[in-house]
């Protein structure tokens, strides 16, 4: 299966972004783990003709040999069906919806394993004041100036990243849309 853009969603802005790209004439596939009934904006996206893969999860990624591009992705539900696109957009949200995972002293992004900014020492992840800004709020995927994700410091040519998964509360939606549309 082929699309112009595949959005690996879950994050808050995934459907809004998907709809926007759709309206700009792109063929968009939105994949996310949750059930579709949970969110009206996702329903709207589908009603407008977008493709939705709800309750499914990316389980494998084919990388170009030199690691510079994503060639295809696969989901648990569609097993061996390669999903291909011009551009992939990672918009899978933060910790609560598993866009980011953590264990002691480590935070990672589980789908592509792209570079994440965080503090190594997990005893510094929280502020003792519940109502203060928490250090973990600033953790997240580091976007390049072109809104792309980095892997071991190198930009991945066709993998964009946006939404609340980004570090430091960065909002690059406008920039990203400009680049993809």
């Amino acid at each position, binding site marked *: 299966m082929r699309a112009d853009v595949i959005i690996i969603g879950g994050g808050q802005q995934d459907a809004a972004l998907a709809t926007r790209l759709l309206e700009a004439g792109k063929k968009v596939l939105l994949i996310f783990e949750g059930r579709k009934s949970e969110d009206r904006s996702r329903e709207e996206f589908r009603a407008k003709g977008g493709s939705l893969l709800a309750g499914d999860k990316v389980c494998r990624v084919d990388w170009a040999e030199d690691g510079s591009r994503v060639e295809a992705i696969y989901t648990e539900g569609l097993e061996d069906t390669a999903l291909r696109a011009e551009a992939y957009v990672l918009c899978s949200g*933060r*910790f*609560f919806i598993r866009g980011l995972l953590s*264990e*002691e002293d480590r935070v990672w992004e589980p789908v592509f394993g792209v570079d994440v900014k965080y503090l190594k020492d*997990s005893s510094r*992840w*929280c502020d003792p*004041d519940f*109502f203060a800004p928490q250090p973990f709020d600033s953790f997240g995927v580091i976007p390049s100036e072109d809104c792309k994700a980095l892997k071991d410091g190198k930009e991945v040519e066709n993998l964009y990243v946006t939404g609340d998964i980004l570090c430091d509360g960065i909002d690059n939606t406008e920039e990203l849309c400009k680049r993809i549309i």
Partner: protein
Amino acid sequence: MKEFDVIIIGAGITGAGTARDCALRGLKTLLIERADIADGASGRNHGLLHSGARYAVGDPESACECIKENMILRKVASNCVEATDGLFISLPEDGLEYRDKFLKKCAEAGIHTQTLSPQKALSLEPLVNPELISAVKVPDASVDPFRLVSANVLDARLHGAEVLTQQEVTEIIKEDGRVKGLKVLDKSSGTVNTYYAHYIVNAAGIWGAKIAEMAGVHIGMLPAKGSLLVFDHRVTRMVINRCRKPANADILVPGDVVSVLGTTSDKVPFEQCDDMKVTKEEVDLLLREGCKLVPSLAQTRIIRAYAGVRPLVASDDDPSGRNVSRGIVLLDHLKRDGVDGFISITGGKLTSYRLMAEMTADLLCSKLAIKAKCHTADTPLPGSEKSVKFSSVVRKAREMKMDTSVIEAAVSRHGSQVEAMDFSGKGSELVCECEKVCRAEIAYAVKVLGVKTLDDLRRRTRVGMGPCQSSYCVEKAAKALAEELGDTSLSEELKKDYLQHRWKGIVPVCRAEQLAQAEYLRNKYGK
């Protein structure tokens, strides 16, 4: 001027138990607590009703005390105790030498044991370390320390004792070398009040060292911090112990809907006792050792960490302070220091509180020349009286078609005291889903148990202590409590105080699944 027979300082389990015993014997009793009941070690321990097996090899005297008290509390505090039993498992590195000695010593202390094959043990507890080479079943049990303290305080009051919380003893008044009374700072109003009594009992746990200084006597105390982890469900049915010389992180206790793993043990300076934080190193150590008991703990969500201080008392006959007294320490300061009117009770355990209270009340009665006998070994605490199941309230609630599990939860916490709760109308509204706390219970806690904050409420009803850790119910609970306190404008503040307070226990374990939950909690309430 009001004068009491006895004033007890500290509403931990020792002070609460002593107040109850004194009140039952007819003494005019006042119990004073600087914070809330069970705010010290009594609300920050493992919740294990020791069978004594843990002490059988190293401290036979404590072992004997524990098994006797264990059997008594199962009867008189049945609604606080869950007869889970315990397993002492031997791993290959432990060998069987200790186990053999353990079996012999348990027999000597009167602790019933049953040796199980590894297969049998695994069939009872499938998640214990499958490498175990032996297991011994003992009558350990799980105890709800909050409920136990609360029941003692309530019964003391029902028998005429006065109880003051949020009132801190700041000075002890002495005349001619005799303790006469004390000055107490009322924390809500800022005023200082004076109370007089024939005897003052220092039951202030680790802070008893300071109270003693106020009376001009010295008790050598060493604060020993113990940290624990709470897991989000009951991983095992029984208490799981390691069958070896007691060490770090070798006990897992199922309690209510969660499991508690502990403990560490480290000497800390006195300054730390008021604000203890669990460190990353402690979390790591607990987890590493705990996984040897039950390997799946590595994948189980940790919902909180907390720490308490054990008051270790230096032996009076060792001026270096290195030798620590084992067991119960009852100090008659007239005999020891020539200061009359002052008694200290400390050491011991949660499990042995009743005996400590009995010893203290015996001493007081002999000094006051009162002949009353101790009845706490056979008088059930409120909530543990028989016939509770058939109480009229339960029947009425059934007729009202209320969810009976809610009533049963209230009965399990307050026993026959549910009769003082009004489940009609608003009363039946469920506030905390995990622990099944409804409005009627909250109203009762405000009216009868002196609850002023959500944390006070938590200590008496377990509100917010289940798997969701109040992320779903805090808003509702704050509103309900504010209404019951008669001032709805308090709701926001009650909620904020509570969230800040609970955050402290989340911070040390904020990673993996718990970080995800913490993020949710913050997004919902913290921004």
